[in-house]
């Protein structure tokens, strides 16, 4: 398990630039969820507007939304394919993502349709850690700017 500036990043996962992780499972199924860094930045997640099972989704396109407090952000499909199963536990309590984003807080599973060509865009290991470090730095700077606005 890598630790990037305090955020967990399991070694066996692949990562997408819009802050989702992908786990390759048995058969041709992948499981998708949100990064530890993304859940921490969002804060307590109050709702996830998930795609429906059977939906066809496109890589890099919005397939759902995530709400925390009065903020809404997009949930982006890391790969193209068909949604197989969504995590209904999140409908009762989306804060499962905050507590266990790589486990019980998974969001959906899907059957990729174009894995060969799309897998290369996913990041892993040191490259993923280096990418996340840059993202963390941009957000840390944003937080500092916010504080300076608040103190004006």
């Amino acid at each position, binding site marked *: 398990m890598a630790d990037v500036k305090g955020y967990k990043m399991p070694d066996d996962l692949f990562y997408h630039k819009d802050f989702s992780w992908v786990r390759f499972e048995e058969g041709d199924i992948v499981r998708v969820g949100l990064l530890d860094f993304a859940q921490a930045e969002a804060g*307590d997640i109050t709702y996830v507007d998930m795609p429906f099972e059977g939906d066809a989704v496109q890589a890099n396109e919005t397939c759902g939304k995530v709400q925390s407090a009065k903020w809404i952000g997009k949930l982006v499909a890391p790969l193209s394919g068909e949604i197989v199963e969504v995590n209904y536990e999140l409908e009762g309590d989306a804060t499962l993502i905050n507590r266990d984003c790589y486990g019980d807080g998974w969001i959906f599973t899907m059957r990729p349709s174009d894995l060969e060509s799309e897998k290369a865009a996913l990041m892993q290991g040191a490259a993923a850690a280096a990418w996340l470090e840059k993202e963390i730095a941009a957000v840390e700077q944003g937080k500092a700017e916010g504080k300076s606005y608040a103190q004006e």
Partner: protein
Amino acid sequence: MNSRLILNGALSSAEGLAIDETICESAAQGVAPPTLHLYHYKPCVIIGRYQNAAASLRLDRCEMRGIEVNRRITGGGTVFMTPDQMAFGLALPSNFPSLPKSIQGSFEFLAAIFARALSEFGLQAEFMGKNDLAVGGKKIAGLAISQDMDGVTFFHSSLLLDFDIETMLDILNLPTQRMLDRGISCFGDRMTTIRRELPKRGIALSQLQEAVARALRLSLGMDFLQGDLTEREKERMAHLRRERYDNDEWIYRTRAPKRRMASAERKTPGGLLQVHLCAAGGAIECILVTGDYFSRTRDIARLESLLKWTSLDRASLEGRLAESGADRFIHQVDLPVILDLIQDAAKNANGLADL
């Protein structure tokens, strides 16, 4: 760099919300400059994107009072709007130079603009909780952000010039009758308005709008030139009205987390403590702490503001409150007692049929 200001008078909920979504889309597509929409609403109640209308509102009371119900694209809870609240929509490209690249930073950015505007009237406003703006510890504006469209950050807010608490309490679905009975004084203690803070100044909504536009211009370093929607945008707005804001499917049947509400109370060394809460999914949508304990009103308002939209998970609640020094908010009431009561209320809520 120039930007656009769209200034409107009283709008129906469908008009106001459709214009806001249109300017958001235009900014996302890069076909319009950053746009500020300042307006006010005919009496209406607007729920958050993922709220259940029938559970959150007393729809019969809304109908009886002729208050429109609608749903916005931004998150958060119910807002009751009348011509005495300044409605604010701002669409900025997400890569706008002075816009912080963090969610919290973006909320503070917006709060600072409002604080700058209010300082023109001699009011000192500060950011409170996760996304409220407060004067003297009392909420005066709520802030919401949507970043679900590529490339655009959209801000929604309502700033209170005046407020009709009695009507709001009549149309909201609240945890208990007792909360409703005490509601007027409770809510009155926790929120304030510009007219309440400055009773003799007779400040008009237009003055407030001018101050906000000025503060935005100074903060962003660009002029807002008054303009209107383009013809293409007007067509898009009409389409959005049909698809969403004049459409019962969107208003009443959008998927939302289950909403439950209940109260719990306990005698403590510091006095009787009561917690009334509405839970949406696994988080607190609204909470009111009442009783005969000893505390400063502003500390209770701060406590409630901290708890709003927080996970009901005990560790999360504890983390949130401990880091804010909330164990000192109520005399002779320790943090574990407050946590127990919140969890009791949540358990009571779970025992009720879903609304």
